[in-house]
Each structure stands twice: as structure tokens, then as C-alpha cells.
């Protein structure tokens, strides 16, 4: 088994470890207990495993764990600070954007990166949709998810 030593932060906490080069970032995060990161397809088609790498959204299933070296990773667990939901999480609650919840953490991260990237910009519904096109949801028809992203953008 080939390993590489990496240093990274996950939700602002520092880690150093030897990582099996065969692991995806999703594998690594889930093993470490960050089970908000969900596997829906393993090939970047559903977005359920979306996390932020240096604030950029990626499908962690299509991202080698060793690539996380010297990077800052954010997952849905870390968005809730001291028991307080982030504005994005709050908006998902308010708008009824959650049903089975399996796509939710990935979508929360997609919305988070999209809004941080477009902070201060006035966004059309169409633009918001484009920012969420990499995440599949089979429960909501996306209506309340897009509503939640728009609401969160105003918070």
C-alpha cells in the first residue's frame, strides 16, 4: 500500500496523516467521521459528496485524498458553528428544501460556495440554478432548494 503524508485542515481543524493514495477525498472524510459527505454515484454525476476545497466546490468522490495536501476542506458539519446553523442551512430549513436529506449536505456546500463566490452580486433565478446544476435531487424538484439559495443570499 502506497501512502503519502499530507497536512490539511478540515472545518478549521488541523490534521496530519499518511494517506493511502487509492483513496478519494470522500473515502477519507467519511472514514474520519464526516459522514455528511454522501456517496450517490462515485463518478461526479450527482453532487451528493460535494465539499469545499479552499472554498471551491468539488465532487469529493472524484478527488484524490492526497490532493488535499495543504488545503482547507469544508463540509456541512463545519458550517454549523457552536450549534448555530449557517445562513444557508437556516434557509434550507425555512424554505422546506429538505426531504430525504441525502443530497442535502452536498447541496448546502454547493449553495455556500456559490453565494460566497457571488457575494454582493444581484443574481437571477436562472443564475442560481446554474450554480446548483451539479447536484441532483429526486425529492424536491429543486423548487425549494433554489428558493433556499435565494433566501440565503439575502441573509
Amino acid at each position: 500500500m502506497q501512502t503519502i503524508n499530507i497536512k490539511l485542515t478540515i472545518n478549521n481543524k488541523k490534521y496530519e496523516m499518511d494517506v493511502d493514495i487509492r483513496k478519494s477525498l470522500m473515502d477519507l472524510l467519511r472514514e474520519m467521521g464526516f459522514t455528511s459527505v454522501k456517496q450517490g454515484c462515485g463518478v461526479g454525476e450527482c453532487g451528493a459528496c460535494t465539499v469545499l476545497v479552499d472554498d471551491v466546490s468539488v465532487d469529493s468522490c472524484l478527488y484524490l485524498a492526497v490532493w488535499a495536501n495543504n488545503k482547507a476542506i469544508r463540509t456541512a458539519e463545519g458550517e454549523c458553528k457552536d450549534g448555530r446553523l449557517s445562513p444557508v442551512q437556516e434557509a434550507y430549513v425555512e424554505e422546506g428544501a429538505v426531504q430525504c436529506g441525502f443530497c442535502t449536505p452536498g447541496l448546502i456546500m454547493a449553495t455556500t460556495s456559490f453565494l460566497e463566490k457571488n457575494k454582493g452580486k444581484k443574481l437571477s433565478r436562472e443564475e442560481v440554478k446554474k450554480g446548483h446544476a451539479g447536484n441532483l435531487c429526486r425529492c424536491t424538484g429543486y423548487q425549494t432548494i433554489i428558493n433556499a439559495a435565494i433566501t440565503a443570499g439575502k441573509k
Partner: protein
Amino acid sequence: MFPIEKYHYASSVDDAIQALAADEKSKIIAGGTDVLVRLHEGDTEYGCLVDINGLNKLKEIRIDDDGNIYIGSLATCTEIMEHEIIRKHLPMLVESLATIGGPQVRNTATMGGNICNGAVSADSGCAALVHEFDLVIEGREGERMESINGFHTGPGRTILNHSDLLKYFLVRPEQYEGFSGSYIKYAMRGAMDIATIGCGAMLRMDGQYIDTLKLAFAVAAPTPIRCPNAEKAAEKQIPTDETLEAIADAVEEDVKPRTSWRATKEFRLHIIRTLAKRVTKQAVENQGGAC
């Protein structure tokens, strides 16, 4: 967990080339959005990887004093799309890259990979062809430059040798100055899809006449292609409905669509004709003209 047997993290371009040369089973991994999918499927051909993600120089995007634009092969689709230089000079490339996958895929996928994997459906393929990209490649024999014309040799195949590494794309000013462009991806979904047909155009007007039309298609032949017949049909013509029809007629001579379970040849041909007209019309309008 991916079935990776051997993994080398390249420390320099030379190191990468040496690692490639040392093992004929080795493959380059860049953004990983193709290679890791293959590995997930258990494809043993991708078991030995040379990872080039540490080659930061290949991420660079810049323009020189002559207006030559250099796009590093490791620049992600998002990095290219959001780069000031690209937005200013190559909006049609931005439009094309925006149709790839979804945000997460664009955040990791590289244009280098999109071109080098030889996909017939490459969304950047049309843009590369109509901008007549040059590709600067490092190989065992040193650096060389190849044109995008002729780079693709068949489905999944290019002229690249096993130990070759694409370093950057070069776009010359004469390929974009005075041109307007347009790209339409015809797919079964609005995102996260591969093109049924992709069609891109660059166009320059001379007064009320079309001076030059460059038209390219993805998935209309075994490789992304330019359309010399259609381009000729547009030359020195006023962009009227008749001209558009003439372009559509001529394009039939340029393409070789085929029937697959995804779509029939007849359907593809109809869409090819329609896209040739629409993309040309859009390019004319983007130049401030009208059809």
C-alpha cells in the same frame, strides 16, 4: 477506493515525462474527472498514474505584448472561464466551457484533459478548432508545437505519443481579433450531460458581408471537425435566410454523423443543419449584425 496500482506525483515536466517513459502502462492524471471515472469502473488500463497536479506552471493563463494568449493545460475550466483575459478576448471559449458538466466538474476538470482525452464530444473541441489553437507539447525529444487541426485522429485518439505532455495552448491574436463567436451544445439535459451535437462558430463581418466563418462540430464525425464546405458557402455572402440555408446544405458535406443508441443519423443531421444556421446567426448578431 480506486484500483490504483502505481502512483507517481511528478515534481517537474521532465520528471513527468521520464515517469511516463519508464512505464508503458502509465497514464497522466490531471483534473481526474475522466481518469477517476474509469478507475471507479474498474478499468485496469488506468492503474498506473503519473499525477501532474503539482506542476503549477501549467496552471498559468497569460497574454503577451503581441496579444498571444497562453492557457496552461492544467488550468481548470472554471479558472479559464473566470479569467479576465479569457473573458475579454475569448468569450466563445467561455461560453463553450460553461456547458461542461456542472460547477463541481468544471472546478476540477482541465481543458488540457478535455482536448487530450480525444473525446468526440469535447465541449472545448469546437472552440479549439475555430480559434485554431496551437498546442505546445513536451516529449522525450523536447518541446514541439502542433496545430489543433489534425490533433484528433479518431474517437479517444490523438497524435500525442505515450510520453508526451501538453504544456499549454496558444491562441494567436489573428484568431480572435475582429471575430465574434457562438457555441450551442445540443444535449438531452441542461447540465451534467455530454453533447448530442456541439456546434461552434467564429465569424468576422466585412460591412454587410460575411468575411470569414469558421464552423466546427462535436459528435458530428469520429473527431471534432471544422466544416470547410459550410465555411466556403458563407464567404462573402450577406447573412440572409438563404445564406443560412446554403450553409446548412453545405455542412452536410462536412459531417459524418452516425446512428447509435443515443440518436439516429437522420436526427443528428437535422440538428447539425439547424445548429449550423443558429450558431451562425448568433455569431452575426454578436457582431452587431442581423440575419
